[in-house]
Structures are given as C-alpha cells and as structure tokens.
C-alpha cells in the first residue's frame, strides 16, 4: 500500500469535514477498499474511517419502512430478520469474517456489478439517504462502479419499504462468493420489481419485461417464454454472456417461487 493518514471521526459532520479534502476517501468496512489499496489501485492521501460513527449504525422499523444505517454490518442486518429477504441476502455475503466488517453503505457506495446489496436496494425500491439528500434507488445506480454520489458524500442510511413478498436468489461464484448472477424480486401493492446483479456490464438493473409479467401473475410460470438478451452482459472465465442470460431467468423464477 502507498502511505496515507487515517482519521476516525465520531459523527457524520466530522466525517464530512474530513472528506472535504479532495484526496480523502471514505472507508466503510474496508472489505473491498483494503484489498484494492493493497494492490495499489488507489492512492488516497487520507482515509476517513466511518466505523466510529455511531449515528450511522443500527436498524429501525416504522410505518413499513426499514431504515438501515449506512455503517451497519452485514452480520447485523442478517441477525435483524424484520425484512426477511434482506436479512437472508446479508447472511450470504462473503463469509462470516467479511460480514463482521462489511457495511451496507460501503457496498452500495462501491456498486460492484456483482454485489448483492445493490440488487436489494433497487429491487425493493429503496431510498439512499446521504448527508446531503435522499436519492431513489432508480436514480442512484448509474453504471458499473458508478453511482449518483458526489465527492465526499456519505451514505448515512438506506430506507427499505418492506414489500408484501420478496426473495433474493444468488448463483454464487464459488471463488469470490460474489454473485455470478443474483436476482432480487419484490412484490408490492404497486406491482413487482425485479433487480438483477452480476449479469450486466451496466451494473445492477431492472428486468422490466419480467416485472410486467409478474405484476399480472406472480408465479414462476408467468416467466415461461421470457428470455434475456445476452447483448451487453458480462462474459468472463466464470461464465459467458449467454450463460448469464440463461441464469437471469432461472434465478428470477427461483426467487418468485421462494418469495415470502
């Protein structure tokens, strides 16, 4: 790693002030950023660790909305259980030691195209809360590793409207434990949302044809005959674009069948 200073603010306000230096970088749980720093793929002058910001940790529920603090670990979300599909998703990220450190805010800020949480946020129609504003998930995820966050902006919380039924199905890439393809399905009073991760060069995205079919008939059979184009899907040594396209419909059907 290149040398850098590290700061541990105790409040969001202090963190925002510390990040006002343009060569400063926020550090969540570090489960992606620290390996990146070790490869010298990033060279911040200063890391601002958010792990000491108590106001960004914790989970609360009111009026059908689950609010998860940006600094809440995967392990804590997994243990919560009040939004079952979300807790199950968190319980299958990485491994136990990664879940002890990794945070929802870090995952959503990084927007890895194969990460699990972006699918939950987009699939649930969540709202990303930052120190400056609230951003609808539909406007937040811009592309692979790209988000609507500005310089120095911090995700302080994510608000999930708890759907009638939801489920996340992940086809695990066994070496990295990321999703080769993951699909989050949520059935709400306003219709069905389907978010796909791991598949596209554009990052997490919605599968609108499946949403339309499932809004009329919420059953795996409603997806019969629906296929996904392999154009612009990720192709690597773990799976071709055609393989991923096939997995999208398989995992969507499984998520619908398992939704509760």
């Amino acid at each position, binding site marked *: *790693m*290149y*040398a*850098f*200073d*590290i700061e*541990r603010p105790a409040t969001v306000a202090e963190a925002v002030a510390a990040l006002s230096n343009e060569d400063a970088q926020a550090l969540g749980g*570090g*489960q992606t950023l*620290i*390996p990146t*720093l*070790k490869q010298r793929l990033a060279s911040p002058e*200063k*890391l601002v*660790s958010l*792990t000491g910001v108590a106001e960004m940790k914790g989970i609360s529920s009111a009026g059908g909305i689950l609010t998860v603090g940006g600094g809440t670990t995967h*392990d804590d979300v997994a243990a919560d259980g009040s939004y079952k599909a979300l807790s199950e998703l968190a319980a299958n990220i*990485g*491994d*136990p*030691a*990664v879940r*002890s*450190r990794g945070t929802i805010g870090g995952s959503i800020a990084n927007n890895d195209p194969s990460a699990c949480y972006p699918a939950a946020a987009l699939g649930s129609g969540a709202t990303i809360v930052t120190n400056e504003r609230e951003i609808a998930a539909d406007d937040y995820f811009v592309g692979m590793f790209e988000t609507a966050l500005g310089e120095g902006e911090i995700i302080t919380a994510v608000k999930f409207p708890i759907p009638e039924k939801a489920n996340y199905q992940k086809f695990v890439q066994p070496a990295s*434990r990321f999703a080769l393809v993951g699909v989050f399905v949520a059935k709400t009073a306003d219709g069905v949302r389907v978010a796909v991760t791991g598949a596209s060069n554009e990052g997490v995205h919605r599968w609108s044809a499946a949403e339309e079919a499932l809004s009329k008939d919420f059953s795996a059979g409603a997806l019969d005959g629906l296929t996904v184009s392999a154009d612009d899907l990720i192709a690597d040594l773990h799976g071709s674009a055609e393989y991923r396209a096939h997995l999208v419909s398989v995992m969507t059907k499984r998520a619908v069948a398992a939704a509760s």
Partner: protein
Amino acid sequence: MTKVTMTINGKSVSGEVEGRTLLSSFLREDLHLTGTHIGCDTSQCGACVVHVDGKPVKSCTMFAAEADGADVATIEGQANADGSLNVIQAAFQEHHGLQCGFCTPGMVMSAAALLKDNPKPSEAEVREYLEGNICRCTGYHNIVKAIMAASGQDVSAIAAE
C-alpha cells in the same frame, strides 16, 4: 504515526502505527504475536482471523488504527489459564484437524466464534461457517469433525474420509 491502544487477550497494549498498518502487521511485527498467520494477504484464506469486540474478522483486512479501543482476541489467548489446550484446540489435536498447521489459528478462531453463537451446530452449519477459512492439507473433514467434537456432539458417525 498514530498512537493506538487496545486490549489484546485481556491485556492493554499500546503502539505507534502508520495509517496503512494492518491489524495483522501490528500483531505480528510490533507485538510479536506471530500465531496469527498471513496466508494470502488478499482476504481470501482466513489464516489471520482474530476476534475484534467478539466478532471474527480477517486481521489482514482491517487497519490497526481501526482497532483503537477495541477488545482483540488472538490464538495466543485461547489456551486455558494453566496453559493446557482449550476444548477446541484439544479437539483439533485429538481428531487430527491439522496437518501443516498453517491455517489452524484462523480455523480455531473461526470455530470459537461459531460455537459462541451456535453451541451445537450441525455439520452443514460448520462447513458453511468455514467458508472463509481455506485449508490445503486436510480436505476439511477432520477440521469439521474436531469442531463438532468440541461442541460436545458425538462424532463417531462422521467418517474420516
């Protein structure tokens, strides 16, 4: 350099660290607690697992500065007060849960974290919990058997394959 103070295996410890000093480096190079092993340095292998505030973490994927004020437990603190092996360590010995021994500190620390949360895990739960701990010798069977035995469950039916 930043001063950090933390409790390690029940003792208060202070040191001067750089921002980029990993917790694993602080333990091994500054404190000479070399029981915590660095297998891969890429967050994959789990040989460096320690407990921070009761949770298992990969000490190569956390900065020492982030552990300031934390309660850290390493393999060096696992033995009983009289120096004898604790129940997990003894089970690893009894059931041949190690061969070269390189992954063992992380395996024992992960096992301890599992049994704290789930005192009677199923074999499947043990295997799932060890997802982030890689062993290249044993094929895992005897590690799983040792952890099942350490939890007080009958392991006579678990074959050593």
